[in-house]
């Protein structure tokens, strides 16, 4: 049994502004808070680039985990002001990670060479886990 695990808890609360009370309440279409929790087993032996606490991101797409392996889990925290954009196919940057946001997901055995990040302008700084 793998010893390395990652527990992820996610909570999403859709809300809707109610004029009479001048505040946000549960969204009337959805009506509740949404949440999930998962424990992901990752390999005990990871490449030295599977995590970093201080990675600069530029406008040039950069591979995070350089091991050339299949990735099953990713976490990126954007620590700086500029948005960071994530590609999982090596060329299309379809996920946006704003300042102070954490993006976390299980992946369907994505090639590490295709997991890249970049900014749209200037630089940013991230912490990440990209694990097999």
């Amino acid at each position: 049994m793998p010893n390395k695990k990652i527990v992820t808890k996610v909570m999403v609360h859709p809300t809707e502004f109610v004029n009479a009370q001048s505040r946000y309440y549960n969204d009337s279409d959805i009506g509740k808070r949404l949440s999930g929790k998962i424990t992901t087993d990752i390999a005990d032996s990871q490449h030295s680039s599977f995590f970093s606490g201080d990675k600069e991101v530029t406008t040039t797409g950069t591979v995070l985990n350089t091991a050339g392996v299949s990735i099953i889990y990713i976490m990126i925290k954007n620590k700086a002001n500029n948005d960071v954009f994530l590609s999982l196919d090596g060329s299309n940057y379809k996920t946006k990670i704003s300042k102070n946001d954490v993006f976390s997901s299980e992946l369907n055995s994505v090639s590490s060479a295709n997991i890249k990040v970049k900014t749209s302008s200037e630089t940013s700084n991230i912490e990440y886990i990209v694990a097999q």
Partner: protein
Amino acid sequence: MSAVARRIQYNTQVLPFINDVALEEETITPSLKYIDSDIKKSYGCSSFIDITANQVNDKWSSVSRNWEDLTASSQYWNLLVEAKWEDMSEDLTTSGEQLNTSSTSLVFAYFKNLGSNTILLSNDSGSNYLFKLSAGNALYFKADGIAVNTIYAKSASGTSAIEYVLGI
């Protein structure tokens, strides 16, 4: 699907840990979890995003309801009259299913696997299923440069059920 304004609050906690602790002469499985010795920290965020007040159509969200949510004065009784019970989350098979047909740009997406089989998600109209949702797991992301109708989902095996929000 129309409103004065809509806002989605979100937060994530990520805890990397090790299950066993190796001592000099034996390995024990502690009841407490120990932080991963490589990463040495946990991560988290808490924030919100404003989405469009009037969403594209009724399929912008599909969430499960609990019977406990239903009271005599609850708005959900109306939903039960207007829609079938099973429509309140989406059943999936191993064939990719488009969750919403709108071509409007997607801003925020949330998904949860309500079934027992793994769900795979695509953000390129079903060409590649790169995101994985194990049973009970939830995922959200902010989208950039993709339309609502590019989101597809399928069960990795057998059938499953998904709860989702696709906000513009």
